[in-house]
């Protein structure tokens, strides 16, 4: 499989007053195209920080980050924004839908930052994304009119609408009941089976097991990196 992301000796240090906190230390990680990877670990271990750096939402203190063959560690904010827009799709624990926009507009949001799409193409992409998550019939609703599970499905549609290289999911079921959590996880399974690369942070062992590969982090270091047996075979 072709390598999509390569992290080399990545470090993240927070300096607060006189205390230095090493959130991530010597992270070396490679994610391949089409892979479904789960990052797990206890609270405060650094998994969300890692996901933020992977999503170019935060910068590493040192180390290398190669995405699709390009070094992205030192690029400027404008380039980072462009890469986030085209290469990365985000799913957040708290959905992060914009309350003043309806479902259609929320899904449309990443496309509004692109200049290479006509309105018709945009509409088709949005409709297609909403159909994939079975939310086409709620396009005119606002987030406050939806259940948590429905909001997260809309967030998934928003993440996939631009056909990104990788979907980054940060505790996607953390705010959902078990039934809705199962629906969302099934949706991610489906996306993966259709060829999407997914990197998911979770501390739910059942959720983690659905991934092809489980990376375990403890105190900012990768302590385990296991491929699922059936996949290895």
């Amino acid at each position, binding site marked *: 499989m072709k390598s999509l992301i390569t992290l080399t000796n990545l470090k993240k240090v927070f300096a607060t007053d006189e205390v230095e906190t090493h959130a991530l230390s010597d992270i070396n990680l490679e994610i391949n195209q089409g892979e479904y990877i789960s990052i797990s670990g206890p609270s405060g271990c650094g998994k969300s*920080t890692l996901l*933020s750096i992977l*999503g170019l*939402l*935060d*910068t590493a203190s040192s180390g290398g980050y190669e995405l699709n063959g390009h070094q992205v560690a030192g690029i400027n*904010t*404008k380039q980072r*924004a*462009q*890469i*986030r*827009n*085209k290469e*990365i799709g*985000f799913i*957040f624990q*708290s959905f*992060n839908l*914009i*309350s*003043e926009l309806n479902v259609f507009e929320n899904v449309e*949001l*990443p496309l509004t*930052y*692109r200049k290479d799409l006509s309105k018709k193409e945009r509409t088709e992409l949005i409709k297609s994304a909403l159909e994939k998550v079975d939310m086409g019939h709620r396009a005119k609703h*606002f*987030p*406050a009119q939806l259940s948590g599970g429905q909001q997260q499905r809309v967030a998934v549609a*928003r993440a996939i609408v*631009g056909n990104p290289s990788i979907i980054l999911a940060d505790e996607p079921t953390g*705010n959902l009941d078990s039934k809705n959590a199962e629906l969302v996880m099934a949706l991610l399974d489906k996306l993966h089976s259709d060829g999407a690369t997914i990197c998911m942070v979770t501390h739910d062992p059942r959720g983690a097991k659905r991934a092809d590969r489980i990376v375990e982090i403890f105190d900012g270091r990768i302590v385990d990196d296991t491929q699922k047996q059936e996949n290895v075979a």
Partner: protein
Amino acid sequence: MFNDLIYAVRLLLNNPRFSALTIFVMTTGLALCIFMFTFINGTLTAPLPIENGERMRKITTLVDGTAYDGSTLRLHEYEDILKVQQSFEVLEVMGNRSANLNTGDKVLRYSATTVTPKFFELSQGRAQLGRLIGQDDLTQGSPNVVVLTHSLWQELFASDKEIIGKKVRINSEPHTVIGVTQPEYRFPNVASMYLPLRATTNGVAREDSPYVSVYGLLKPGVSDEVALNEVQTLFKQFAADYPKLNSNVQGYLWTLQEEAMGNGTKPIILAMQISVALILLLACINVGNLLLSRAVERNKETAIRTALGAPRGKLIAQLLWESGLICVISGVFAILIAGLALDLAMHTLLSDLPIPAPFWWQAHLSGTTILFTAVVTLITIILTGALPAWRTTSGDINAILRDGTRGAQSKATGRLSKIIVIAEVALSCILITLSGAMVNSVSQMNSADYGMDIDRYLTARVGLPGNRYETPEQRIEYYNKLVAKLEQDPNVTSVAMSQSLPSTWASYFNIAFEGVDYGKEPVYPSSNVIVVSENFFDTMNINLLQGRKFTSSDRADTQAVAVVTQDFVDNYYQGQDPIGKRFKQTEGDEKWLTIVGVINNVTFGQPFEFNLRKTDAFILYRQQPKRFMNLAIESKLDPNLLRETLDSAMVSVDRDVPAYNVMTLEKGVIQRIGGINFVSKIFLVFAIASMVLAFSGIYGVMANAIAQKTQEVGVRRALGADDVSIRRHFIVAAFKQLAFGLILGVPLGVVVVGLLEKAGMAKGSLEVYLGVPSLIAVVILVAVLLPVSRSLKIEPAYALRYE
């Protein structure tokens, strides 16, 4: 309850910057409100501080629809009204006279009021020494007597307790001092002494009727509408019976307070009240919004309290304690500031006024003010506390406890923020437009073009006593001598005479044009008609546009001639050559006046729109010599240096005739628009206050709204938005709110300015109408860009977790 109060105090002390800001904003709003209420109440709306003062009215007139302060009625009209009127319990008259008082070594000019005994009853005048005017004093041929005002007695006679029975010479005739009024009695405000009113209509033609001021007490229960209707009906009858005298005159009623405040008072007061109400509303919105933002920050705390069983009423009461504390502290500061401002304002106003202030002007803090402050403070507590209290206690507790301030709250709060911004923009737009138009108007008045020079003249008014200067020849001789004497000073360039000066009223007459049939119920046009000396136009640097000026060949026994302004020609002789055309005044001297020249437009009276619209015609002094004239002495040097020259010339020509109102023309012009300047200063304060409140408010609301969207900024950036896109998004969103606010604010501002423009008190302009929205747009832009830039400095990963 005590615990809630302590908690509110602790909250304020914990955040001193927030507390100082809210108290400053509310103090500004309340101080202006208290100031304006007390000022208006003390000068205009409070009943006169005399018995039945609330029922006292002056019957006056509107000429061509305009009310003039100091307007008088013919004695004939008063007597006709008295015979039939049903609305007034008492109706009395007084007249005004010029009194040249000879003190032995000099002659001083004062205003005298001619009155009847009943007038003192009506106005509740009392004598401190001696007695007041009695019925016997009114009889023709009875001894001349005078009652001095307390202030004149103090100033001129050093409070001489033996003054009663002493003789003083007034207008060259001996008068016996029979009384001195009580110190507080000053009715009307310009009077220095009281003489018996001996005017009569017996044997006097209606057009020669003496003019009097008519005051009355409305009968109990009779409304202003009923009385006004009756007066208007009577004047309609006068217009029908005497069209030459009354065709464009309507009856009108004024309270004394309205008369003292002058023409156009009502719209100004209304504008001030609107401004103050808007400023207070703006302050309430600002403080309410600041409290709201703090309440939103404390959402979780409120949710926890609710979860622990706190009743909604208790939560609301706790929030109201906070706004209550802020408003009460602000109220105390505001009343102190308003008290100081009132003292300063009254001092400024009184020193700007060309005449003494009315006796009832008492604008200082009183029990009424404190009661008003208490009521307004209570209203502000409710206004500022209600919104945060409602918002905070109506949220979804589960969502708040689960998600912090996010989730279900954000959309409603966002909508509320938008509404607040729109309201702030609309209010600010109205306020700043109004203030801008007022300041603009006064600025234009201060730099008004009167059509003649005003900067190098010493002016003075001269009134010749009727008993000694009865004939035209006597008057012409006096003024010829006086002018000749003045021109002996080598520093005097020229001496002109005019019945009126720029910024003083001119006589406004009905006129009729030759060859025009005005029908059986004639409605005549009107124009200012001003008597001037031959050299008036040259001395005042007025340009001749057509024909000729007055010359030495225009004499009393030659054709009566007139020079008119271009406006006069444009109004009455459109497309025709006016030279040689004739018109006449419809009352008094009805000689036909032949137009010999046309000059540039000039302005008499305050430079209000309705004065600028008036046309002017000039008559030669030699052909209509008047007893009262103004001198305009042009000087090569500072005109003030000619005062001694004037004094010695006056004494040498006739020592019993003093000059009064001696001042440079420039100062006279400034003084006569003193009231307007005062109003302008108040509106300037309004403008500054409203700008500070509006801009800080808009900035506060916008910045707060954007700060609450820090997480949204994170989301957008996570989805690929670059900094430019984020800025553009927020600017577009903000400008939509700006557009809504301006759609409401601009037309309302234009309407309010339009109302004041009709009264000549404001001047809207393209600069104001475009400048104000542009200024607000700039503030919005800054209010968006600064907080957005702050949000953009936060890495998206942290912005997403921002609470």
